[in-house]
């Protein structure tokens, strides 16, 4: 097992900069996520780690070994492809055994290891099926077994769940996390699905057009996004423009069209008078009186979804989204005036120009 260091790596394809000076450090045994919209360079990073393309600048290290001169077939990583890439002319067992054969593992051990790997992904009974006789979820499990059986230094997963239906995707999230915890292997996981990243990751790097916007554990990137891009890419969000009035420790006071709000300071924002935005998640906006920050608004619309109710309120020319959990009583009719409040700890002050991604 290795830790992976990506040191100031850039990659261009023609005129397009796919990866722009990215530095990451993935610890041994970590389940690390690269999260971003399509075209942000996350798959390119994964392919550079696997050795399928070379960085134009910077380098990739496994622990402290530079990988520049090591060809793809000697890197001992195991890549799980988005389309699984099972060899259609080999049965399940042969697919899984392939990597062991390349590593000259004796036949007896091979059979045992293959059986164990297939057991681990609960595919033991289908060892003699051909890949085209398997469902998508089963193919996914075989691909995982093929990757795990060689005891790689790191497992690289390229949007592994994107071809599965919603139910199966949920199931496989738990499955991959379980396998990670059982084996303790280093995993680098690429996805555009924020739920996948939040629910599975030890740490997440959020990317936009070739750059890393923020690295952190799921809670911190959700609760304390570093900029507007991260805030709006992960989950829904409300942004209220304003001016920073004063700073008290970790909190700042922001003057907005809806009134003065107290909120946590996101990054090193200390200059009163600067343009800022106050970010509040919909589930942190509550109807009724109370809280540190409150304002009056008009209820524009509401959608009842069973476990939650989505509301849109208007105040100071802004449309804000709110979500109430466990909606028992029916919401007041459209056009009603409502009181809205939120806690200072649930809101965060972001620099106004911090678009992120469009720098």
């Amino acid at each position, binding site marked *: 097992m290795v830790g992976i260091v990506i040191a100031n790596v850039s990659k261009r394809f023609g005129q397009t900069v796919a990866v722009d000076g990215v530095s990451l450090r993935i610890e041994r045994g970590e389940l690390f996520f690269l999260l971003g919209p399509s075209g942000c360079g996350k798959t390119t990073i994964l392919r550079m780690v696997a*050795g399928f393309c070379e960085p134009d600048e910077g380098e990739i290290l496994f622990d402290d070994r530079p990988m520049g001169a090591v*060809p*793809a*077939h000697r890197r001992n990583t195991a890549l799980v492809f988005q389309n699984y*890439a099972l*060899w259609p002319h080999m049965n399940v067992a042969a697919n899984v055994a392939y990597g062991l054969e390349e*590593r000259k593992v004796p036949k007896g051990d091979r059979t045992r290891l293959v059986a164990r790997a297939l057991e681990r992904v609960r595919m033991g009974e289908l060892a003699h099926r051909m890949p085209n006789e398997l469902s998508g979820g089963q193919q996914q499990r075989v691909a995982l077994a093929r990757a795990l059986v060689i005891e790689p230094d790191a497992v690289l997963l390229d949007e592994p769940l994107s071809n599965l239906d919603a139910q199966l995707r949920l199931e496989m999230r738990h499955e991959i996390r379980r396998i990670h915890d059982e084996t303790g292997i280093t995993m680098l996981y690429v996805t555009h699905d924020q739920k996948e990243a939040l629910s599975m990751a030890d740490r997440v790097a959020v990317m936009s057009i070739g750059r890393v916007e923020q690295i952190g554990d799921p809670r911190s990137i959700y609760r304390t996004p570093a900029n507007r891009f991260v805030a709006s890419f992960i989950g829904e969000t409300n942004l209220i423009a304003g001016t920073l009035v004063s700073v008290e420790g970790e909190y700042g006071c922001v003057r907005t069209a809806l009134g003065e709000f107290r909120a946590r300071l996101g990054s090193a924002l200390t200059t009163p008078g600067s343009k800022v935005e106050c970010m509040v998640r919909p589930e942190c906006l509550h109807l009724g009186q109370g809280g540190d920050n409150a304002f009056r608004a008009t209820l524009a619309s509401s959608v009842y979804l069973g476990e939650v109710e989505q509301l849109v309120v208007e105040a100071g020319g802004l449309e804000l989204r709110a979500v109430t959990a466990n909606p028992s009583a029916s919401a007041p009719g459209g056009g009603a005036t409502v009181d809205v409040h939120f806690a200072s700890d649930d809101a965060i002050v972001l620099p106004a120009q911090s678009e992120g991604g469009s720098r």
Partner: protein
Amino acid sequence: MRRSTIIVVAVVLAFLGAFLVYPMVYVFRAAFFPGGEFSLAFFSNIAANPVTRYAIGNSFLLATVSTLLTAALAIPLAFVSVRYRFPAKGILGGLLLVPMIMPPFVGAIGMRQFLARFGSLNILLMNAGIISSRVDWLGASRFWGVVIMEVLHLYPIMYLNVAAALANVDPTLEEAAVNMGSSGWRLFRRITLPLMLPGLFAGSVIVFIWAFTDLGTPLVFEYRRVIPVQIFDRVTELSDNPEGYALVVVVLALTLITFIAGKRMFGMKGFETLGKGGAAATEKSPGPLGKLLIVGFILGVVGLACLPHLAVVLTSLSDKWFMTVLPESYTLDYYHAALGHKLTFDGIRNSIFFSSMSTVVDVLLGVAIAYVLVRRRFLGSDLLDALVMLPLAVPGLVLAFGYVAAFSPTFLNPRENPVPLLVAAYAIRRLPYMVRAAYAGFQQINVTLEEAAVNLGSSTLRSLRRVTLPLISANLIGGGILAFAFAMLEVSDSLVLAMKERFFPITKAIYQLLGRIGDGPYIASALGVWAMVFLALSLMTAGVLLGRRMGQLFRV
């Protein structure tokens, strides 16, 4: 089933029944039921006769060796052209297909000059010190002479099939293997090669059947110990020696056995049914030395493959050519002679007439069949599909033999007037290509375009004529030109069916001229050059019209 579908199916079944199934059934009946009683007498005759026994084994060997060598040449060609970027790639890719513009037996005429005991090759090799005594390429080593001709003519078909299969291999399948620790030869042998086997198999079947049943090349090399020549000899004496029937059955049986055995061995599975995705295959850019090697390799193959063509051109131009590498002096006389000669003039006129007729039949039937197959799937449409593709597996020689046998006692007797049978033979042989071209066209055109026209008041036939046919016209014209060009090239059925000089098509005229003492071979070569130019122009036109789709017509 709609009435129009029934009409189309009935016409197609009647045509194929009369000109494909009936002659085959007739041959089988004559072989197994001579005089109305079941008997294997002819087969035991064949088995007892050392000449035919040898010919069967020899033909089988010839076809096998030709197929293996063709594959050995085509696989690296396909690999470099699919996987690497190099200068003039488009032009070189086109040049690789040049050998298709001439039947190998015409090239063989020129090669006789090159390969003769005192011919260019021996002189060159001896001057270079590679051989010390003259090799009798056309005598004791004729086997290899024929093999070389077949390989040089047939590798493009293999190349097209293999290249297509290779291009269809999902690149992530190879990446997955590299990721698991494979590289180089092992990667190719364990992953890439098995995945391109379907294409390799498809190409091999065509090449094998072609080499196994080619009549023209062994005839020109006067290599009689092959089964097509044995059958050809027996056509003329059918009435008193019915062994020919049994030989034809043997050829068909061996063709089928090879086909089925190959299919079993390679375990054909629909590999392409698996989902595609991930990165598109990228062409690698080799270093300057690599580029030089690739271009050199392709130019070498093209050069070799053009040798027969070059030999034909040289022969047609040579005034005196004996004991030297190149002719001593040149003349254009044979071109005048070729165009003025009664045999050649009639040959060209006949060929154009027969081929035009067969092309019209092919286009009409092909469009109708493809339309029913694509738009009106019905119970048994798979069967129709298979029947229409059957001519690919029935050698022209076998078909022609069946015609002579089955239709001699009727008003279609080829001894009197072979024109209807020649047209039918040409049409049947090229029908699969036309159906495929039209089929591809119909598949590309979304059915809603037709439905929109019908919805606005067109009848089905009118919507077809106003909307669909114009949209697929490039496919149809391209397919038609190919059908026409290859009908002009038909060798074995022309040689067998055209018995009176009046009805000789070009290929038979060339063969006849070849046998004349004196200027015969030179005039034959000149005529061959005219045919080559004509075919090259046809193929180029078809290529422009069909674009990249042209290669698909030669794939199975």
